[in-house]
């Protein structure tokens, strides 16, 4: 079929915009609720610790995925300082649009944790290197609502 003819046919067939109109009441869960309560009330980060696996989870989890131990009795806060494992400088947003200013993201392993926490990084670009010590900066208590964004960034 010639190209012009195909275009005409497509016009006749038509297409239209639709959507999957859904929202969700997301649940923080048993461990998540504690994590966010401590973050909001105290500006601290809560972890969970499996003795058998010698593994620390931050944010806290209610069970160990490695051995299925119940970790709900092991919650304790960890240091707000840690090591930068990896970083990126992002130039496009999730719809592909160019950001006005780049955003830096880092994977940080806090002292006492085995896992990494991903969050916004505000470190002078010339100082960005894996292994650098970084520190969590929290929003002032009055602005904290129990969200992962109560942790403002790492610097």
């Amino acid at each position, binding site marked *: 079929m010639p190209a012009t003819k195909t275009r005409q046919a497509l016009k006749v067939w038509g297409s239209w915009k639709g959507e*999957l109109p859904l929202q*969700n009441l997301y*649940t923080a869960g048993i461990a998540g609720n504690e994590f966010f309560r401590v973050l909001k009330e105290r500006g601290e980060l809560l972890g969970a610790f499996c003795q058998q696996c010698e593994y620390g989870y931050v944010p806290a989890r*209610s069970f160990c*995925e*490695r051995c*299925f131990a119940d970790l709900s009795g092991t919650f304790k806060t960890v240091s707000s300082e840690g090591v930068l494992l990896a970083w990126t400088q992002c130039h496009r947003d999730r719809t592909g649009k160019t950001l006005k200013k780049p955003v830096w993201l880092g994977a940080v392993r806090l002292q006492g944790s085995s896992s990494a926490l991903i969050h916004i990084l505000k470190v002078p670009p010339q100082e960005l290197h894996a292994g650098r010590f970084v520190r969590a900066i929290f929003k002032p208590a009055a602005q904290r609502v129990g969200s992962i964004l109560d942790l403002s960034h790492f610097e």
Partner: protein
Amino acid sequence: MARRVAVIGAGMTRFVRRAKETSRELAFGASRMALDSCGLSLNDIDCVVHGTAPDAFDGFHMKGEYLSDGSGAFRKPYLRCYVGGGTGVFAPIQGWMHVASGLFDTCLVVCEEKMSSCQPHPQGAFNSIFDHTTERPLGPNLLWIFALEMNRYMNAYGISQRDIAGVSVKNKKNALDHPAAQVAKETTVEEVLASEVLAWPVHRLMVSPVSDGAAAVILAGEEKARRLTDRPVWIQGVGWDLDTSYWTNRDLAYPQYVENAARRAYRMAGVREPRKEIHLAEPYDPFAYKELHHLEGLLLSEKGKAPEDLARGRFDREKGELPTCPSGGLMGVGNPIAAAGLMKICELFWQLRGEAGKRQVPGKPERGLAQAWGDLMQVGTVVVMGIK
């Protein structure tokens, strides 16, 4: 020849609306309980099969991956299977294949659903399963389909709403003895018929609730099963079958796909006369009429005669010749989609081991059947289990 496979452990969370746990924590709760029930640890599990229905419910795409930690899949072979509402009985069939093939000796099968968090209503998630050109513009929800199917079933055989309401009464009553039940209650046919009409002829008390919950079973190959327990419950037969996905193009009065699935399972189990050889059944009952519809498809009642069997008490738990939904079913225990189907497998396990407590079917039943249904309302999944 496939290896024999047994269920050796089972567990489930309570079925509730608005669970405080995350989906992962729910999956963990059921999985851990199933492991504990047979004294195994996660190390003893060779592979994991997970079942969960639409991603949209949990507000999470790739839900199988999201739920893998709570399902015990850390560094293990893992499979998520999905045939909508049929998933809960399909998942143990997948687990059976993993073990029957000889590839694995043990398998943890876990199903989870968290529906109540879906806003503004879980029915909204179902709107997107309809054809975007010919059906979605009408704004359908599942109730519309079920209302049409129920009405077709009634018209084909001269069945009344009153004939069907008895399923709600029986199942909600059975569920009073289930510690995990969400909507157990003592009710009457009159009360069911007086409840709100959601889409005629479907009344509110003929519909299972929106639920959150999880269920899990442990499967083992014959040698392993005999070493781990002296009361294995064998998976004797499995079957599944798919009808056309156009609901406009299938027989709404009779679920031929359920019959096809059942015939496969019966053949494998060596069952020639299902009405004599099946001692209890957990047919899928998300709506009251579906239990009857399915019992006919499963060849456990004559076509159009399940309502008569129900009326004369044939399906009663204490005195009936074929107790159906002794657990209380989806109408009584609740309906976290995939978990509800696997709950039926758990029930067979407990019943056939004589561990069902107040729900125990009398007469030492030796063989039972569980069935689920779903996808685009055209899939039948069947498992036959027994102690021999």
